[in-house]
């Protein structure tokens, strides 16, 4: 019962944050509601027993990636977004489409997927087991993603670096 209550509270916070992301016009408000979504998702992971995933979710997503977003919003001093014709068309078709789509998915999942229940902390993911899996079964994907991150770092430096600072110059068009 307690488990269900916690799930519902944080699920509601999650959905409220996601809807707020859509409603807000200023990107920094959207970014903050996304942080709320991520933090409450971390609680949902804890309910499922995935404690390491929850901690990493807070550290990586909320603590690093979103800081980068907030940093860029501050750096570019992004103002409120203006509504254009394209966005009005998207809104007329998009919002009903989303409601119908998510309603359909919810109905199918609730009606047709059986009543399999997940206990609190159903599958504990202790760091030791996760590390063992990561460095044995998933060693190759792990190494490949490390190369991916390296490429991303270099790409970011090339794209955002000033063209006059001696780095790899971006052609001024």
């Amino acid at each position: 019962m307690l488990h269900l209550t916690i799930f519902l509270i944080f699920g509601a916070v999650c959905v409220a944050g996601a809807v707020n992301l859509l409603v807000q016009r200023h990107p920094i408000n959207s970014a903050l509601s996304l942080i709320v979504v991520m933090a409450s998702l971390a609680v949902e992971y804890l309910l499922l027993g995935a404690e390491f995933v929850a901690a990493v979710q807070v550290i990586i997503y909320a603590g690093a990636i979103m800081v980068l977003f907030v940093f860029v919003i501050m750096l570019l001093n992004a103002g409120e977004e203006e509504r254009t014709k394209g966005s009005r068309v998207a809104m007329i078709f998009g919002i009903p489409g989303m409601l119908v789509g998510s309603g359909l998915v919810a109905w199918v999942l609730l009606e047709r997927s059986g009543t399999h229940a997940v206990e609190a902390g159903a599958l504990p993911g202790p760091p030791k087991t996760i590390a063992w899996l990561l460095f044995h079964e998933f060693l190759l994907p792990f190494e490949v993603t490390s190369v991916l991150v390296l490429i991303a770092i270099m790409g970011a430096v090339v794209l955002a670096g000033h063209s006059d600072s001696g780095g790899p110059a971006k052609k001024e068009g």
Partner: protein
Amino acid sequence: MVPLSYYLVLSGILFACGVTGFLIKRNIITIFMSIELMLNGVNLSFVAFAAQWGKLSGQIFVFFVMVVAAAEAAVGLAIIIAVYRTRETLNVDQVNLLKL
């Protein structure tokens, strides 16, 4: 005891919100955040399925998704900064020329 389908419904709603944000938002940063929201929705279903099947591989995949999201955020935000430098707008409707 929470039915597995509740977790999946929550993840579905988050994903749908992400898709909608991607469609209706015109600020390139917010569009990018909608993508992150979709990835988060998928992560939740990964962890939920991991709990159902009793296999930790689902949780491992969440890490890979996070790594890809971090790489994507770094490159994507660098592109946004480069776009803003040349065009001085973040509105995707106004970024419609291949060459300035």
